[in-house]
């Protein structure tokens, strides 16, 4: 195999991988919001029957690594007044950061009925976030992947 073909294959792979890498932001964002919504549902379920404490809900693991890290930082925060802020993923914008911080600040601080109402009010919001993330992932995520493959192909053709 000639050097040109090897170089062309490498360029193709780099282009495709870059596309996948750039689209990761959208798939991670989708996984994050799906996990956040799942957490909210789990909390509602635990609350409704056994009134289990937050600790029990926090011990669960979710699909999104970023969300699991957020839960770890929340656990640290409630165990220690001086602990640092919540660890939020970089893809969250300022409004989302405020919303998520507010959501976690509202956990555990009220009686059963108020807590349930709070979780139910967030449910609609999170459902919308998941739907937006699905749309963005379908729109921009797959676009970036395709663009990466096309750029890779163009590079391949030029190199050959």
């Amino acid at each position, binding site marked *: 195999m000639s050097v040109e073909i090897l170089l062309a294959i490498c360029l193709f792979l780099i282009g495709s991988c870059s596309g996948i890498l750039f689209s990761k932001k959208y798939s991670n964002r989708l996984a994050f919001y799906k996990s956040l919504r799942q957490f909210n549902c789990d909390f509602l379920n635990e609350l409704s029957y056994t*009134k*289990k*404490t937050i600790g029990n809900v926090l011990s669960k693991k979710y699909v999104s690594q970023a969300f699991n890290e957020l839960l770890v930082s929340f656990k640290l925060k*409630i165990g220690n*007044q001086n602990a640092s802020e919540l660890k939020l993923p970089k893809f969250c914008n300022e409004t989302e950061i405020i919303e998520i911080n507010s959501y976690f600040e509202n956990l555990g601080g*009220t*009686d059963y009925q108020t*807590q349930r109402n709070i979780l139910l009010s967030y449910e609609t919001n999170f459902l919308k976030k998941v739907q937006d993330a699905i749309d963005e992932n379908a729109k921009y995520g797959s676009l970036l992947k395709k663009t990466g493959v096309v750029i890779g192909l163009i590079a391949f053709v030029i190199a050959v």
Partner: protein
Amino acid sequence: MSIFFPDGLERFIQLNRTKLNEIRIRCNKPIRALVEGKWQIVTYKGTSIVANKSQIVQIVKSACENSIYAYNDTIKKGYVTTMDGIRLGICGKCITSEGDVFTITDFTSLCIRFPNQIIGCSTEIYKLVCNENIKNTLIISPPGAGKTTALRDLARLISINTYQNILIIDEREEIYNESYDLGETCDILQNCDKKFGFFSAIRNLCPNVIIVDELSNENDAYGIEFAIASGVKVIASVHGNNYNDILKKRYLKKIVENKYFDCIISLNRNDDLFFISEVIENVC
């Protein structure tokens, strides 16, 4: 998750855990501790420890495992009992709804009671209560004198010596936690009111003996009547100094005068443990 305590207080608790009975935390006032029956101001590096309002709130939140919703049923009754059996009496602003206390917020002071299991401390009481048959017994003592500690050890002694089925109605989750040895024949009903304990559990759990702490109202007295009339032996405790004190409580006077109890024992406290100050048998 453990309870948050201000700097120095946690260390003090760890050092004195087995001797510690009670801690009083009042907003911006020196924290006081009852150690082996003697009050002292808790100090750290030579100065007294003072808790501010936000620290008191943090103590309560951490005792609730940061889940107020899970503990609000007891918060509105004025206390929180942790997994370790530590009871926080809460003082603050009561929020009412239609005349009932809905919750307590803006906590300003706390009375933290540390339970201890003292193996063998009720041997003398056991000899009075379990002479041939188990007697229906009322134990009287002022707050903090050791009623609950006495009941805990009495349950253990009855269990290991008689193997009777014992139902402990532990409304405030103070008598039992997993670290205590109460023998093999105790059933523990926790966090339920005494009414449920007396009227439902007698049918469902078929106890020979019921042990119940802190009788405090007509319903409790009615439950005692129901249990004793159902053939179940009852050992109960109540706040007071002596027999004359309980006759002043209308809800108890009737059942005492109607001879529901075979034995009435008054306890008082000396430096480190309670002692029996009065025994009335064959009450009449």
